[in-house]
């Protein structure tokens, strides 16, 4: 039951992603191209997603536990460090180069386009690169 629920959840997210336009790198990049072919659509995506999630989370957290689990596992960290800022800055650069982000690319894999698969393989490469950095410079980038 838990796995069927997870599959359904992924499907809802993916359908939302597809209709939102976030799956399309051209549309993502145009959101940032205020000086050129600007397309403000993605502001509406974020607005819609935040509206539902903000109030939805509040409703869900009235419960003591999730349907298929013992507790809600929410990150509690409040530390603002170089890793957070540097990592986020890097993420934005990568996102700005190709217009692909993981949340859009996973559902986009279902379109069967090889470029999406190539991107996701490279993302996994980036995960391993981070592991490598953590092992050679553990104090600089703790896992």
């Amino acid at each position, binding site marked *: 039951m*838990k796995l069927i*629920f*997870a599959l*359904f*959840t*992924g*499907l809802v*997210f*993916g359908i*939302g*992603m*597809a209709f939102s*336009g976030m799956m399309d*790198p051209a549309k993502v*990049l*145009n959101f*940032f*191209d205020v*000086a050129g*072919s600007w397309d403000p*659509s993605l502001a*509406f*995506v*974020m607005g*819609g*997603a935040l*509206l*539902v999630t903000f109030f939805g*989370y509040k409703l*869900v*957290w009235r419960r003591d*536990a999730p349907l*298929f689990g013992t507790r809600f596992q929410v*990150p509690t960290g*409040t530390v*603002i460090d170089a890793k*957070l800022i*540097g*990592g986020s*800055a*890097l*993420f*934005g*650069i*990568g*996102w*700005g180069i*190709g217009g692909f982000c*993981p*949340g859009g690319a*996973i559902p986009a894999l*279902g*379109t069967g386009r090889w*470029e999406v698969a*190539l*991107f996701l393989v490279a*993302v996994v490469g*980036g*995960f391993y690169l981070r*592991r490598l950095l953590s092992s050679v410079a553990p104090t600089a980038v703790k896992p």
Partner: protein
Amino acid sequence: METVFTPFASLGGGMGIGLGSVLLMLGLGRIFGATGIMSGLVFVENRDELAWRVALVIGMVMAPGLIFVATGTMPALTVTVSPVMIVISGIIVGLGASLGSGCTSGHGVCGLSRLSVRSLVAVPTFMATAAITVFVMRHVFGG
């Protein structure tokens, strides 16, 4: 390249993304962060942690096909950069998102919705570097 401004589809799609995020919290008590989910598929903790992530990703990947069956058209996806740039962007995205502990879905949707301090720093950071990257690639180098 111009794209069509789609306020209603994007708002609706964004609400779908939000609904998916809320459902994952309701069912499994987890944040819908695409980077964390992908990373959990690559660096496996245990079978249970792997199983729900696999189910979730299968659901996400099914979305475009389901939309194709229902509407007769595959969601638009226009790649604007070369395969080499896709690989570079993917590696940077993977490295950055894992260092910064999140991407557009984890920090952007789930983090902002719970007013996480770390996300409130991460999101403006990656939005800014993405915008700068797009500006430099399109208007400085004339991408």
